[in-house]
């Protein structure tokens, strides 16, 4: 079978399944973080609200990625590829702002 590639068998191994409690915990965490951002923006509109949003939003994204999307348990190659994609998006933004911030 499948003479042309060696990794196939490893590739179809049973995944390791995380306990449901963990997912519920993550979900609660996400809701709490949402509540934090929302209340920061309601009670401290302006700088602090934005700062909280800037700090918390990536944290939420990281939780979704690592647990819901299982990235924490994938091969490092997946994480690396993901970082490449995000890194390049960051480069697009960063270099564009060399124009807009220095006009």
């Amino acid at each position, binding site marked *: 079978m499948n003479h*042309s*590639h*060696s990794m196939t068998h490893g590739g179809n191994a049973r995944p390791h399944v995380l306990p449901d409690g963990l997912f519920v915990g993550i979900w609660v965490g996400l809701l709490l973080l949402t509540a934090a951002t929302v209340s920061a923006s309601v009670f401290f509109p302006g700088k602090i609200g934005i700062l909280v949003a800037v700090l918390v939003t990536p944290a939420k994204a990281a939780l979704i990625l690592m647990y819901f999307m299982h990235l924490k348990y994938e091969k490092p190659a997946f994480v690396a590829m993901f970082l*490449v994609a995000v890194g390049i998006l960051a480069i*697009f933004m960063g270099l*564009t702002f*060399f*124009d807009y911030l220095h*006009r």
Partner: protein
Amino acid sequence: MAAPSSVAAFGTTGSYLDTFPGRRGLWGWLTTVDHKKIGLMYAAAMFTFFLVGMALGFLIRLELLQPGTQFIGPKTYNSVFTLHGVIMIFLFIVPGIPAILGNFILPLQLGAEDVAFPRLNLLSWYVYMVGAVMALASLFISGGPIDTGWTFYAPYAVNTQTNVSWAVLAAFVLGFSSILTGMNFITTIHRLRAPGMGFFGMPLFCWGLYATSWIQIIATPVVGITLVLLFLERTLGIGFFDPSRGGDPILYQHLFWIYSHPVVYVMILPAMGIISEILPTFARRTIFGYKAIAMSSMAIAVVGYLVWGHHMFTVGMSDTARWIFSILTFFVAVPTGVKVFNWMATLYRGSIEVRVPLLYALGWVFLFSIGGLTGLANGALATDIHIHDTAYIVGHFHYTMFGGAVIGMFAGLHFWFPKIYGRMYDEKRATWAWGLIMVGFNTLYFPMLILGIMGMPRRYQDYLPQFSFWHMVSTIGSWILVAGILLMFFNLLRAIRHGKIAGDNPWGATTLEWKTSSPPPLLNFAQAPVVTTGPYDFTEILAKGHDPEAKSL
């Protein structure tokens, strides 16, 4: 790997081209998921568009033979160069090498039966065709053929009454096709390498495709959304690129070039891969600095994301951004230089047999060097201010795109033709065609470099008298080039049916695709290949004294 039935055995012997039990004829082609047939289907579609694009380029040259209007008025001229650019870029050279040669060769070189997602591969072809049909439809649907240049700059592309909307949607669809191909190739490379073949055991063409695919999947969506926004700007007036609503036309250019600069490396990286296959084969020695060549492809892909602003030095970007983009631009030249020097070192103390693919490869090195080196003057600030949007740029990009990507594809076609069809073209005629192409090419495009430095702007239907002489030379060059290209196509087409039988490995090459029969069987290999040596290990070939025809041109 027992093949229990005779039908299955068919999959590993015989030729993929033969009629196959099941679907036949045209239907068999249109529903095939065989990567080789899909490659040929792309070839049929793309070379048709290529001929149309070339005919348009030929018309441009005729119009520019002398100052004044020859036979195409300004409006028509604008549509002609726009279509020429759109066809050449979106329909031909961006998807070209990956879709045609990549599809055909990549799985063979990896020792795989097919790409990772064969059905998706067929789907990409259909998506491509839909995009192409939409692009062609934009010619006839209300508004008339687009006249914006292939860059679709706002606000002109927003205001013009020609049919830009269809054209940008077509480009969006075409982008999708190239994303799908990119995903397919990356997965194929990660998952389907033959046992024993590590990443650094892959042939260099695969590395070229790998780097290319990454650019395709990361950069294409950006232009996709940009073009959709341009469409919505025209239909709804969302204001992103409209100065009267606070939008910024320069932002359109940023978004456009964020994709369109990296995409020039989509065109060139696979071509560089082809050259890296051909040189060692005909020098009969291992490539010099395999790792450096492989990694420079990745380096070019990465640095290629950082330089898009060099298309915008005169638009009124901040001065800081201008010098940053300028210095970054120069860094792309370095990995390219490493490649060129390593290739030269590969010829050193080789045992060189000059055959047609090698001629194309050498011609490629010459033409692409001119193209790349002219890019340096574009990258420097003071000089680009002068030559931006002049014929010099037109010269630069024909040298890189045509001299680089297209000639690279021609090199690949001549190299793999005996593998694809199992037959050999007439090498004498091919050499003549090569000679005509080289002479015609330089007569056509070198004058453009001179014109640009003299101050001849591009996209001009008419010009001042001081530019006449070089325009005339350039037009004459296009006639020579036509002769060469037509001769080349004639020669190859004829050989499909009438060529001599080529044999499995006519060049004495070492990569896996040469270890199966020519043309390959449906599932590529009768025996699952296992890799024990590097990709360019000539020990076996040399031991055999392998010299099928022992002739040199």
